[in-house]
Each structure stands twice: as C-alpha cells, then as structure tokens.
C-alpha cells in the first residue's frame, strides 16, 4: 500500500465514523421531544422528565460510535425506561431511610452504563422480530400496510379484500402475539 493509498483508506474510515456520528446526532435530535413527552407521561413531573431526558441522552453518548446498535430509538427508550425504574427505586430507598445520599439518583458515569441495557434491548427486539416473521401471512400483511405503509384501516381493508373490522382484529391479535413473545413486562 502506497502512502497515498493509506491516506485514502484513512480518509474513508474517518468519513464512516463521521457519518455514524451524524446519524446518531440526527436520531437523538429527532426523538428528543418525543422522549421528553414519554418521560413526562411516565413520571407526571415536568422537571424530573427534563432531568431524565438529559440523563438518557448523556447515557446514549456511549453508543455514539457503536455501529452495532440496531435502533438508537429503541435503545433510547429502553435506557429511559430503566432510568425511570432506577429513580423510583431510589425514591423508595430514600423513603425507607432518610440517610441515603441524594447521589444515588445522580448520573452514572459513562463507563458504568449497564451492559444489560443493550443486551436487554437486543433480546426484546430479536423476540419481537421473530414474532413478526411468525405471524400468519394475512395478519402480517395487515400490520405492515397499516403501520409501515401508513394506510388507513379502510385502505388496508380495500387492498386485502376484507372488512375494516377484520383489519382491526388482525392488528389487535398481532399486538397480543408480540406481548406473548416478548414476555409480559407491563409497566
């Protein structure tokens, strides 16, 4: 490899890394508001929701250069979900003993980001993916046309030659199949 080739190869790598980062940054910016709303719904506390949003985004930074993450959005919600649980546990502990330092709810350092968040998110996704693939063909088609193609139920019904009620039944049953596949983690 000539010096020139090596230079080109390095440039290529740098470009890839840059692309990855801008993809990540775009995903975070695009979902920030929705994340805040989600956390507000979960906590019913505007200030806490803003704090947890910040904390979620800062924990997500660890994954900024990780090309193996399948969906930043899903991982982000998993991280946020775990933060809410952590917060609730910490609050419970504070109530249980007034001597527990506030630092238990403070941000974890980046190098302490639990690995199980990634494993957990991947596992659920994998189960969900299998459930999607395993749906009866008509049910899967109804779900895809509605959710991915963005068709209305009457449009899906017309395309598939079935009633709107039947489309709804397919969607409802598909959701229950997902629930059974991923395991009941209600809450």
């Amino acid at each position, binding site marked *: 490899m000539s010096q020139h080739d090596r230079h080109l190869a390095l440039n290529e790598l740098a470009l890839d890394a840059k692309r990855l980062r801008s993809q990540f940054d775009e995903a975070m910016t695009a979902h920030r508001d929705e994340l805040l709303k989600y956390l507000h719904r979960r906590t019913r506390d505007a200030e806490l929701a803003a704090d947890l949003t910040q904390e979620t985004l800062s924990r997500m930074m660890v994954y900024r250069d990780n090309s193996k993450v399948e969906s930043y959005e899903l991982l982000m919600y998993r991280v946020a979900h775990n933060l809410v649980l952590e917060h609730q546990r910490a609050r419970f502990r504070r109530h249980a003993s007034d001597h527990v330092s506030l630092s238990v709810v403070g941000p974890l350092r980046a190098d302490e980001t639990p690995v199980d968040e990634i494993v957990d998110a991947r596992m659920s996704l994998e189960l969900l*993916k299998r459930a999607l693939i395993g749906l009866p063909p008509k049910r899967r088609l109804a779900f895809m046309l509605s959710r991915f193609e963005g068709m209305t139920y009457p449009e899906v019904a017309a395309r598939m030659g079935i009633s709107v009620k039947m489309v709804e039944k397919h969607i*409802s049953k598909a959701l229950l199949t997902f*629930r059974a596949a991923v395991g009941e983690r209600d809450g």
Partner: protein
Amino acid sequence: MGVSAMATENERLAELAADFLARSRDETPAERQAREAWLAEDPRHLRLYRSLEKLDKDATALLDDPELRALLKHNSE
C-alpha cells in the same frame, strides 16, 4: 382468586386493551371517550395498554429494516 384465575383475568384485560388500541386509529369521539374511561378505571388497564403501545411502536420501528421488510414481503406472497 387463584393464580390461574388471575392469569385468565389478565389475559382478558390484555385482549380488551389490544382491541381498544387497534381501534384507536379509527375511533369515533364516543369510542374515544369509552377508551379513556376504561383506561382511567384501573391502573392495570393503563399499564397493559401502555405496554402494548410500546410493542406496537417497537414492531413498527423494526419494519424500518429493509432486510426484514423484504423477508416479510417475500413470505406474504
């Protein structure tokens, strides 16, 4: 209530929640009111509904993967 009766009750509620969620895209104002009343009735209702909503969202996000979509399309035909 025994453990299995409780499980059955939970399944029944999950089915109701899934029906409400599926219907919510196309609901009339009266249906919306009925759904909201049901959700406010019992924290379990809301929990079930929210977890199904999350699955709905996750599954929809998965469909962003062109490879998976191709596989699903192939199998649907």
